[in-house]
């Protein structure tokens, strides 16, 4: 890419990013107006990006359908279901009866079922965890999970004293402390990565 194009892209990122970032800390009317306008445009462009993703998905499966690759039947099924949903949704609205029918009886059951299968898979994986790796951290991990699970449930006809309190203590003290450290680390990483992009050191947009 030419130097002028790279410079242009870097200038865009820096200028726009600076306006939005300064709006967090400086309360200026002009800055607020500019920030609002930039944010609105970004919202619109994010919706257009969803359309771009949809077209790309359709193109990939259209090509797959036209080729001799195995699984082109499924690509055809995907395209048909996409088109039908698009037509019904654009014609009647996203919260119309027919759109909600598709959502309630196709999308929700399939996604919920996928999540339900996860319960079986996770139980199987955790049962085999100690077979693969036995060390302090895996034991702590599995022990914590089992304690929280058993502390969440209520055993019919059986009350184990302190089980609920232990579960609460684990989630509120050590787990919360660890989570706070993770959140702080994530925040610091976000700041470092974001500043690198704003100053032009990183150019993930291809510049």
């Amino acid at each position, binding site marked *: 890419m030419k130097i002028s194009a790279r410079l242009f892209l870097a200038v865009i990122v820096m200028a726009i990013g600076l306006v939005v970032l300064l709006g967090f800390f400086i309360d200026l009317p002009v800055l607020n107006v500019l920030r609002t306008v930039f944010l609105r445009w970004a919202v619109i462009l994010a919706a257009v990006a*969803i359309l771009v993703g949809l077209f790309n998905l359709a193109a990939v499966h259209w090509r797959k359908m036209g080729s001799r690759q195995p699984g082109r039947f499924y690509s055809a099924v995907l395209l048909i279901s996409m088109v039908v949903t*698009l037509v019904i949704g654009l014609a009647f609205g996203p919260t119309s009866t027919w759109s909600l029918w598709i959502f309630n*009886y196709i*999308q929700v*059951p399939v996604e919920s079922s996928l999540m339900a299968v996860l319960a079986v898979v996770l139980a199987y994986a955790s049962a085999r965890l100690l077979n693969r790796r036995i060390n302090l951290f895996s034991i702590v991990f599995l022990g*914590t999970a089992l304690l929280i699970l058993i502390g969440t449930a209520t055993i019919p006809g059986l009350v184990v004293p302190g089980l609920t309190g232990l579960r609460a203590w684990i989630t509120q003290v050590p787990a919360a402390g*660890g989570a706070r*450290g*993770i959140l702080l680390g994530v925040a610091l990483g976000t700041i470092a990565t974001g500043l690198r992009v*704003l100053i032009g050191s990183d150019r993930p947009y291809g510049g």
Partner: protein
Amino acid sequence: MSLANMGLVDLIGVLLGFVFTLFIFSYILGDNPLFRLALYIFIGVAAGYAAVMAWYNVIWPQLLLPLVTGSMNERLLLLFPLLLSGLLLMRISPRLAGWGTPVIAYLLGVGVATAIGGAVLGTLFPQVLASINLFDLNAANQNGNNLLLYVMDASVILVATITTLIFFHFGVKSRTDQGSQATSANRGVVIESLAWVGQIFISITFGALFAGVYTAALTALVERMYSGVKLVQFLLPLFTPK
């Protein structure tokens, strides 16, 4: 909505949902065409619904409709996002994808600045303040907590926070001899010990996360079983002789 009050269309929908549930559950036996069929239908429906929402809720009312019915100022102001939208749509074509790069840069600039501001004001400062205020004994007294236990809990939380941060270190990798892989910087025995303690707390946190995920998955299983039971209970009288 009870099945008895459902219309025929909804009943068919419930049956269809039950069939899809069985298709997905067949994955327990192994990958099979029924599972794949249900999966591909779901992906198509989800993609289509997302595009409908994007058009219906954002592009049409916030971009195209104001260009037609809005005031002159609104129209002029919306020319820029219209142009940028056109450039972004060029990303569909591999040949013209380069024209959409400035728009990507624009979105990246806005997103990065938003993330930085939120991280600083929403997480970094409040969480550090929270760590400082862990030993606010006045607040503990007001809440009627046992001070000893309060201080102990606060200490554990503080140690967990610090040691977890030490485990996620941010540093430059030191270079070793040429040809060999770069190794992490030597941090000292004390730091390494604290990082090991932080790893314990991280394991506890991840264990709690795993428990939460399993809880959510089990709840989904319960919901699916409940739907199936309700359907069977609705259909069973139809097939049982009276």
